């Protein structure tokens, strides 16, 4: 996984609450889709199918944005990881939200995408600065110092649980981390096979 330390980029505002993963990445009907094209594929179009010029993703000043700024409960709904891959496909490596849905946040961490949650006061200030910058200036997210800097005011501090921060900064392979506990896993299996054996076997009683 690509480590994350700092990121400087344009911040694209999408200031709505409860944006769900069906909106972010409509269900893919091809096994290896173009995730960039799929991102907000419905939301970025009007009823007649033409691109909606008011949707931020369609505005040239936000092309190549590195930061998405959004509201509460971002990424609710389906667990599809394509809704994170789509962000990475267009270069978004940090999402600043008022809150995230649990599974979406986990999917971000698994892919080196930094999910920052800001409290209501900081969020309001940051959103106003992002709207004022309007794609004309960049913001810098520093995960080492845990702060966001950019035009329109002083640095805004954020915090990430230490464990999640470490994983992102070091770009740690999650499976590798867990496999350090291979012996613990084997020991658990042995204990369980004795104590509650039905958990360790899933046999079809109809098959010999």
């Amino acid at each position, binding site marked *: 996984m690509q480590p994350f330390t700092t990121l400087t980029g344009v911040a694209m505002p999408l200031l*709505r*609450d*409860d944006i*769900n993963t*069906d*909106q972010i990445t*409509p*269900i893919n*009907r*091809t*096994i290896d889709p173009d995730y960039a094209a799929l991102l907000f594929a*419905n*939301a970025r179009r009007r*009823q007649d199918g033409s691109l909606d010029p008011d949707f931020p993703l369609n505005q040239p000043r936000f092309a190549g944005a590195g930061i998405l700024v959004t509201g*509460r*409960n971002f990424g*609710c*709904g*389906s*667990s*599809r*990881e394509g809704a*994170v891959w789509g962000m990475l496909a267009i270069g978004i490596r940090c999402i600043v939200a008022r*809150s995230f*849905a*649990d*599974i979406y946040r*986990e*999917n971000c961490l*698994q*892919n080196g995408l930094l999910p920052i949650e800001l409290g209501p006061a900081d969020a309001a200030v940051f959103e106003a600065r992002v709207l004022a910058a309007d794609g004309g200036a960049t913001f810098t997210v520093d995960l080492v110092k845990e702060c966001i800097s950019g035009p329109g005011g002083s640095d805004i501090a954020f915090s990430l*649980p*230490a*464990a*999640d921060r*470490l*994983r992102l900064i070091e770009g740690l392979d*999650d*499976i590798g*981390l*867990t*496999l*350090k*506990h*291979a012996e*613990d*896993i084997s020991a*658990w*299996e042995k204990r369980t096979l004795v104590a*509650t*054996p*039905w*958990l*360790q*076997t*899933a*046999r*079809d*009683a*109809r098959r010999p």
Partner: protein
Amino acid sequence: MPQTLLDKIWDAHLVARRADGRDLIYIDRHVLHELHAPHAFKKLAQAERKVRRPDLTFSMQDHTVPTAAGRNDFTNQESTPFLQAMREGSTRNHIRLFDIDDSEQGISHVVAPELGMVLPGATHAVPDSHACTVGGLGALAFGCGTTELEHVLATQVIALKRPKRMRVRLHGRLGPQVAAKDVALCILAQVGISGGRGYAIEYAGTTVRAMPIEERLTLCNLTIEMGARSGFVAPDEATFTWLAGRPFAPQGREWDAALAHWRTLTSDEGAAFDAEVGLDCGDLEPQITWGTDPSQVVAISGRVPEHTAPGQEASFGRALDYMGLTPGSPLVGLTVQRVFIGSCTNARVSDLEAAAQVVRGRHVADGVAALVVPGSSTVKREAEALGLDAVFRAAGFLWGESGCSMCAGGNGDRGKAGERCISTTNRNFENRQGRGVRTHLASPVTAAAAAIAGQIVDVRQFLAGEV
């Protein structure tokens, strides 16, 4: 100290605490589906990693399978690569696959309980947010992403932080034509679509105890719509009776030992919860969604809200606009073009039986396309043995082969723009059932009545001949 059931299951499955502070929780049963598993198989192979416990892992073809009779890999060409990659990956990794032509194929969240793969007090993972469904049997289930799926394949554990504990207590006896779906929608209206974030939810109270197992599965299914990853009902004698003799459940002496253990799986008296919610279900009416998220719910006799909370005006307006509704207008009487009875929420035999009771001897209204898709091939067979397919067909419904179908449209079953669709599924999100489709979530009986009446009706008045 008194413990919650969540803590009992968590502690029993805690393998180790990782260096980054996460708990490694052992996964007793892992069920995959073809929309997400092929990516994980590919990444696993690239990393030259093996599936640690193929014997505890099962593969299901459900999200992309066509529902047309006589279906095969090529019925729907967009589905072909998913079905084939799933078959290839499952074979290579020695995982039992319930393939498109298997007599027990179906939606994973329907098949895993009905075959007894899910057990009380066991942990369960599926790369699908509706994994929580199986909590109806007292299992702790986690919906997960594709990378987490790869992690579980390689290690048989999932790395999580312990969730907070929420208890939802339900009291009162449900009235006629009111069922778990209505209860769940009413809870959603109260808790909201993010009120459950960070929690695991235990459903308790007299209403839950009186619910048959299939209803409990429906109740738990909608847990994720509140933002909670896991929801469950403590198992009881009804659970054990329902599970006994199912093919993957323990048998003989092992069953007896399991049963003794399962009887200890309750939250202790006095155990502390981080949040409590209560709901009296005694006067509950059938419920229906009016908007574009599953918490935008009203009773069937209700009206579209006049106002919304401060700060939510824009999204309220967008929902009204998308749904083609005006504030304060009644739901009853809205013309319907499509009805879908199916999904992991409401496509078990009891759901189809209840809907068939409404449909029997009547006919779908002109201008309505109505589809029933059983939740599994086993459900389909049992329903056919009861003659339910004949009831639906005679009424003008299409009767499909089992799969997820129109719930998410992953197999191409979708509606047309502007259609109003009454759906027994779990998400009324914009464009989910087809671009521009206006989805109203409701129970199977409410959906069935809408198909016959050609409009949204109160199923109780409909059956009384008042509509």
